[in-house]
């Protein structure tokens, strides 16, 4: 005798403690099993692409900080500025390129730390949050010393950076690197070997390689599924072709693999920072760029590796001082749609673990 069952539609969000922003998930349940997940986005649509059309190229920098992925403000600035520089054919001084790379990698560490902390909360490990925030505050201090801002920096300029590094800053960064590498094994003790953490993440939310490629999943999500693609290696920008680093790739495609990828990426970021500081040349930090920059007519597509994945900008210039059209290719957007594939067939309790492991920022999804 079969039990009469019926489909249940569960609404998660947009206000939910674990949705990492304002994401609404419409989860169709068969008993406890998920049959379908429908993300409803747009709760943080800031119309930044349209707004950029009304800003001059220099003004747009401040907007990319806030309107795109707010956790990785410098990565947004970087991709925007690269696009403008390629459009206008501006050569950036060496020192500025190194400074940018150091800051981008620091940003990657801070972004992954925040992810790790919130992922810990999602799985019930509150200590991880407090520990990660402790480290993150130190990165924030480093940012503050250089850019003046903690979260939104507006530090990169077309043709360079705003100001030179303050005196003794590189020593502080190296000190942080030593400190941070000592802290990372603590996370291993806290989470990597933790049986509860492993049971909740290992084998959960598997994203096969083919699906990851088909869905356009990139960044740590793609690399955890065996897609060995990193823009820093595949299409190097700034000075990534002059430093040695490895790309962690796992083939399991589960939440645990995504966690391991991000942990290893933080170690690699420290490696990159150390090499950059060792190679940091003296000299100018900013090329001479006219105040009202008018790049020639044309279009350009630039992509970079933001902490969330392949972040691209397609920019069209019509010869005026404002871009004609800007299209942002957001990594979180593609990763969000890979989420629907990951969640199918899992229990409702795994929704949080899977959602947390993908590390989406809704500001990046909605723009």
């Amino acid at each position: 005798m079969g039990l009469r069952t019926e489909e249940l539609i569960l609404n998660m969000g947009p206000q939910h403690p674990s949705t990492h922003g304002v994401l609404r998930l419409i989860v169709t349940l068969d008993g406890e099993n998920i049959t379908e997940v429908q993300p409803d986005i747009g709760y943080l649509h800031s119309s930044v692409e349209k707004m950029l059309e009304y800003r001059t190229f220099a003004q747009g920098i401040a907007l990319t900080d806030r309107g795109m992925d707010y956790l990785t403000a410098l990565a947004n600035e970087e991709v925007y500025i690269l696009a403008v520089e390629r459009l206008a054919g501006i050569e950036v001084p060496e020192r500025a390129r190194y400074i940018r790379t150091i800051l981008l990698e620091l940003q990657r560490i801070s972004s992954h730390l925040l992810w790790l902390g919130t992922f810990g909360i999602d799985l019930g490990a509150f200590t991880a949050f407090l520990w990660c925030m402790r480290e993150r505050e130190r990165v924030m201090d480093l940012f503050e010393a250089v850019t003046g801002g903690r979260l939104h920096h507006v530090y990169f300029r077309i043709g360079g950076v705003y100001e030179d590094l303050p005196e003794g800053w590189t020593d502080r960064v190296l000190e942080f690197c030593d400190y941070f590498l000592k802290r990372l094994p603590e996370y291993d003790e806290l989470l990597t070997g933790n049986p509860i953490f492993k049971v909740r993440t290992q084998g959960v939310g598997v994203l096969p390689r083919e699906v990851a490629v088909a869905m356009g999943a990139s960044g740590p999500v793609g690399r955890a599924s065996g897609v060995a693609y990193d823009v820093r290696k595949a299409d190097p920008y700034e000075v990534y072709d002059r430093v040695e680093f490895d790309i962690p790739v796992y083939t399991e495609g589960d939440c645990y693999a995504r966690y391991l990828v991000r942990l290893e990426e933080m170690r690699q970021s420290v490696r990159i920072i150390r090499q950059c500081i060792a190679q940091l040349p003296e000299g100018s930090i900013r090329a001479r760029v006219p105040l009202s920059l008018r790049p020639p007519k044309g279009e350009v597509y630039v992509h970079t590796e933001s902490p969330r994945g392949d972040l691209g900008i397609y920019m069209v210039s019509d010869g005026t001082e404002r871009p004609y059209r800007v299209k942002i290719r957001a990594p979180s957007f593609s990763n969000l749609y890979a989420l629907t594939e990951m969640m199918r067939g899992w229990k409702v309790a795994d929704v949080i673990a899977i959602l947390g492991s993908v590390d989406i920022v809704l500001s990046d999804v909605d723009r």
Partner: protein
Amino acid sequence: MSDSIHAPAGHIRVAPVDRAVEILDALPGGGIVLTTVEALLNWARSASIWPLTFGLACCAIEMMQAYATRFDLDRIGVIPRATPRQADCILVAGRCTIKMAPIVRRLWEQMPEPKYVISMGSCATCGGPFYYDNYSILKGIDTVIPVDVYVPGCPPRPEALIEGILKLQEKIRKEPFLRRNMVGASRGT
């Protein structure tokens, strides 16, 4: 004077006030505090603001930093609650879209009285950098819900948020909480 004049046998003996003063004065730091019930309630309420765990955008990250290790909002009695029914304050952290506005309004309506709103950051206060040439962002959360404290900044530092919470505490302490219907200070719904 005798202690037993007004105390019939079998009843609890009530010490006269001057006797109580004597006892309390002997204690280190002891003494009698005379206050109104309202001031006592306000003092208690102001030291236990429980905001809703609710983040919209960038400011939510700074809010998380404020909750976390270095700044630790717990020490001024701020403990995040996951549901509006347990919360008495809503920290609107970040830009609010027109699509999100009815939800913020509903969350606010679900909170029990007395309730407070802190608008954190420029976007929640007035639209911030998304004021011009923008079709999707609400120009200030105060068009949807009444705001008690505005915290400026883009995003405000955790220190600024703490200052905002202290200002809210000040406001709560001065509030005619028990007399609010009499003085017509009833808020909202």
